[in-house]
């Protein structure tokens, strides 16, 4: 079983990530057994089956999809994954902040795709608490990234007050 980072520890991952093949219909795609994370389109097409299948089901959002698209379903989603097709595409940072800060989502927000050591600190600040590092990357070493900066300036998902409201001389 592959490992992910969850709550700043390396843990075994129980979920299977489902992707759609080119041209595959979201309504009829076959789903594996066990815990799964499905594309938004599959979730939308098969919501009633998915919510009654008895195993955990999460959704993953691609870069053109946003927090708004799952806002009404948050209570039934134990995990929302946010895809980074390239680590230089920063749209997912906004998605995570909106999920946490605007929609009050408290489940797992997992970064998937091109997820690398040097972005973990920023992602964590935006509300990600799980990270499926890109294959071949050193998870143990990456755990150091969370301690990069002790007291950053801004308010974000991890700290509701900017430093200037907490600053003591």
């Amino acid at each position, binding site marked *: 079983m592959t490992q992910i980072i969850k709550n700043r520890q390396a843990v075994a991952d129980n979920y299977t990530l489902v992707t759609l093949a080119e041209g595959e219909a979201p309504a009829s795609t076959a789903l594996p057994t066990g815990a799964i994370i499905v594309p938004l389109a599959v979730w939308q097409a098969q919501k009633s089956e998915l919510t009654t299948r008895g195993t955990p089901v999460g959704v993953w959002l691609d870069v053109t999809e*946003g927090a708004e698209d799952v806002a009404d379903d948050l209570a039934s989603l134990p995990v929302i994954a946010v895809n980074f097709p390239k*680590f*230089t*595409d*920063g*749209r997912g*940072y*906004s998605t995570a*902040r909106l999920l946490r800060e*605007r929609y009050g989502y408290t489940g797992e927000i997992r970064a998937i795709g091109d997820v*690398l*050591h*040097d*972005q973990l*600190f*920023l*992602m964590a*600040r*935006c509300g990600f608490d799980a990270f499926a590092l890109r294959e071949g990357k*050193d998870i143990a*070493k990456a755990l150091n990234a969370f301690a*990069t*900066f*002790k*007291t*950053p*300036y*801004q*308010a*974000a998902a991890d700290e*509701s*007050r*900017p*430093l*200037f*409201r907490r*600053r003591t*001389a």
Partner: protein
Amino acid sequence: MYRYDNYDQALVDERVTQFRDQVARWKAGELSDEEFRPLRLQNGLYVQRHAPMFRVAVPYGMLSSIQMRCLATLGRKYDRGYGHFTTRHNMQFNWPAIEDVPDMLAALAKVEMHAIQTSGNCIRNVTTDQFAGVAADEILDPRPLCEILRQWSTFHPEFAFLPRKFKIAVNGAKEDRALTWFHDIGLHILKTDDGMVGFRVIVGGGLGRTPIRGEVVREFLPWQDILTYCEAILRVYNRYGRRDNSYKARIKILVQALGVKEFARQVDAEWEHLKGGPATITQAEYDRVTSFFGAPAYAILPAIDESFIAHQAESLPFARWAERNVRPHRIPGYASVTLSLKKPGTAPGDVTSEQMEAAADLADRYSFGELRVTHEQNLVLADVEQRQLFALWQEAKAANFATPNIGLLTDMIVCPGGDFCDLANAKSIPVANAVQDRFDDLDYLWDIGDIEINFSGCMNSCGHHHVGNIGILGVDKGNEEWYQITVGGEQGNNAQLGKVIGRSFPAGEVPDVIEKLVRFYIAERQEGEHFIDTFHRIGLDPFKVAVYGDKARLKAA
């Protein structure tokens, strides 16, 4: 100026540790070149023609003498004894080794400096008016709000991987000296009749390949709301800005595509959620930061110093320098002095380490130990006593800082161009020097009067050619270096883009073309007109004819 407390210091120190680790992992092959690239860029490290190029931030242009000495040392130790001031309050070194950059960052951190976000697709160094705090036409000193913006943008977790770079400029005076109409966000500080302070918010300006003047998205935003409002702008941009084509990825393209009304509506919809939230600036924070920018211990002096007047009467060279390089100050008996980095024959904006040290000494002796960097690539001593100007001038001359050309033709803005930059179509420095050489007669230069010539080596427009009264742009014509000329650009409150006069020229002809344009202006000008005024009165076509002769007239007809 602003001084770091433990929090600020810890962040730049941690940044050094982080980058040292990144360089080590890159060297060990754990980070690919592609993965390392944005990380080094966000520490100001480009890889250029000869070697890496390293860009240090001078936030909103303020430098202490101690910081300047640190830059001098870095130039000597890691570069070839000089540095280059850019148009965006940065200093660039051209020859450091990547392996040395962590040590350079550590040296900078010791003097409260850094290279954070001086490059890359993130929020860049905030820029402002070089006369902030001393300008007679100032509405409010913009520097405290610049510092608050600096802190907010530093390692902003959501906006480190934007579609493209993002530049913010703030102006706090009546006259715009920060090119606010041509930034991703331009802010004008305003004061209402009943004393409320806020910003006019301009979004979507920029130069580059598609030069666009920004549009006003909000006429008046209370100052307390600037962080939440910027956050809303950036979020809309981060989510919806184009990422498929880097030439179309700046926010200006999004604003144009949506139309400014729809863009403003989306920003407002986002801002509804953020407005009044914890990122709203508190009076206490504003006061804390403002306390660092209080007036220095000015002496009580007569408004006009007699010896200053007398020295001007006795020495023509001093009088000329005083006229061009000295500006009035809001405090009686004081003046602001511009140290010219445009001595003809040198690369505009370059300073040697010896000069940096000399400038630091001058700052210590004459201007409370502080300097500013201008976007025209000069240095400013903001607070000099008039009675010291003559002595200062003599020392500035010895350090090659006293060329009396501020605002004159030879005070050109010039990017490094083909001598240093990989992206260049053409060289800029030697051609700029050839133009300066053509106009080496001081009386003539004086007679021409105020004129801005801006020069970029390619469409990226680092040399602001679009807003030069005369703009020179390097273009590639069948693998040869050619130059396209524009006329009529300007910065300031009426900032405008110049217009192309016609087909481009080989390097050798550029001085002739500039001379034709200038001679034509002199022949046509009316009493009191600067070059740009004559242009406004008579338009582009006569200038074309002046350069291309009747062919241009036939074409125009």
